């Protein structure tokens, strides 16, 4: 049950033009930096990227946008990215905005083997247009479908060679639910250990959901809004 691959290039080698990818992270926190760099190097294009945000101009998914590799972004918030805005306004890029909880829960549904979820988010708004609405106990809910992604690419703090993952602090965010949702899930980790070194009680993502794992390198972990307290 050894899932270790030799770095990001090998992990993403069979990602092809036109595929749908999930990428973990919230803002620039908990991003699979190594795999994004490898995707930029490989130059695959016409990708649909499901990720909460679209990075900034020179970091995260912004790097893939700059190379025009993304056909469609599926996100809850895409501010802070001038190149994104330019491509969107010029019609080069398609964007689907989804409420953040709906985005997360559609990932979760895929990982739990459920075809759809019902959520009140978006009732009475343009998000509800064309969607099935069901009333439960007097309240309206929108039916939202589980995502169907070719690959999920996540970043964890620690992982073992069997693919069990542990995240650190708020870098967890979308990573566990996306890890569960990919047909093929790739995990890059800061620390790769042998089976038995992680406490089974502390595993966040069981290895059954993870197909490929590798130890990432040179993490920049850029901070988007460095905010400090005055002494």
């Amino acid at each position, binding site marked *: 049950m050894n899932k270790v691959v030799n770095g990001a290039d090998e992990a993403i080698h069979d990602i092809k033009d036109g595929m749908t990818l999930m990428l973990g992270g*919230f*803002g*620039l*926190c*908990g991003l699979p930096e190594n795999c994004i760099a490898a995707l930029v190097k490989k130059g695959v294009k016409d990708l649909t990227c499901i990720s*909460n945000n679209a990075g900034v101009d020179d970091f995260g998914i912004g790097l893939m946008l700059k190379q025009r590799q993304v056909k469609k972004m599926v*996100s*809850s*918030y*895409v*501010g802070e990215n001038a190149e994104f*805005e330019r491509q*969107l*306004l010029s019609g080069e890029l398609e964007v689907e*905005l989804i*409420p*953040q*909880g*709906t*985005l*997360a*829960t559609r*990932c*979760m549904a895929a990982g739990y083997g459920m075809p759809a979820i019902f*959520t*009140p*988010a*978006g*009732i*009475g*708004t*343009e*998000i509800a247009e064309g969607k099935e609405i069901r009333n439960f106990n007097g309240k309206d809910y929108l039916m939202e479908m589980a995502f169907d992604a070719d690959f999920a690419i996540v970043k964890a*703090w620690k992982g073992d060679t069997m693919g069990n993952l542990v*995240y*650190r*602090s*708020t*870098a*967890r*965010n*979308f*990573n*566990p*639910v996306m890890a569960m949702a990919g047909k093929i899930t790739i995990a890059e980790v800061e620390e790769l250990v042998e089976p038995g070194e992680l406490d089974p009680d502390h595993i*966040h993502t069981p290895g059954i959901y993870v197909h490929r794992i590798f130890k990432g390198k040179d993490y920049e*972990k*850029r*901070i*988007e*809004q*460095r*905010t*400090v*307290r005055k*002494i």
Partner: protein
Amino acid sequence: MLDKQGIAKRIAKEIKDGYYVNLGIGIPTLVANYIPENMDVVLQSENGLLGMGPFPFEGDEDADTINAGKQTITMLPGSAIFDSAMSFGMIRAKKVNLTILGAMEVSENGDIANWKIPGKMVKGMGGAMDLVASAENIIVAMQHVNKAGESKLLPQCTLPLTGINCVKKIVTELAVLDVLPNGGGFKLIERAPGISVEEIIKATAGKLVVEGDVPEMVI
């Protein structure tokens, strides 16, 4: 008239001991500074944290520890980390007692618009639609009128909606108002220091209910 800090201070008085609270970006974030020290309040950040603390001291920033506004933050003792699905699960399941957020417009039946202006670059709704669709106790912090001098408290919202029939209370630089159920309108609860009822009537386009003497707020 209240400044942003004043609005935050007044909203902080709505927080009760034992509350779990979600604070939106902007004025709502400032509310954290005015929670009374003797109160046990836990702040939820929807990127996956309960127990959000103040900003770190310089040198202590941790790139893995941010809030939903992507700012570096700290965690208080007793904090818990969870994934994004669980984060919105606890919001949907009404475990979060109070949600405070900003708005561009609120209507007299409690509809809120705060995510999109037609013709301008749309950045997205983030978690706002999930929060307003599920939270039972929503307070809006906003300016009473926009930069063009037009009221933001309207009979009906003109901008694309974020959620319907959801806002319970509004605190502006001029007043505290409750949103009455069943389209009953905005009920004036308190005036900001130095502000008259007439000034509030003039700044409110939606139905305004004024009953008896309206007290000046104490902050």
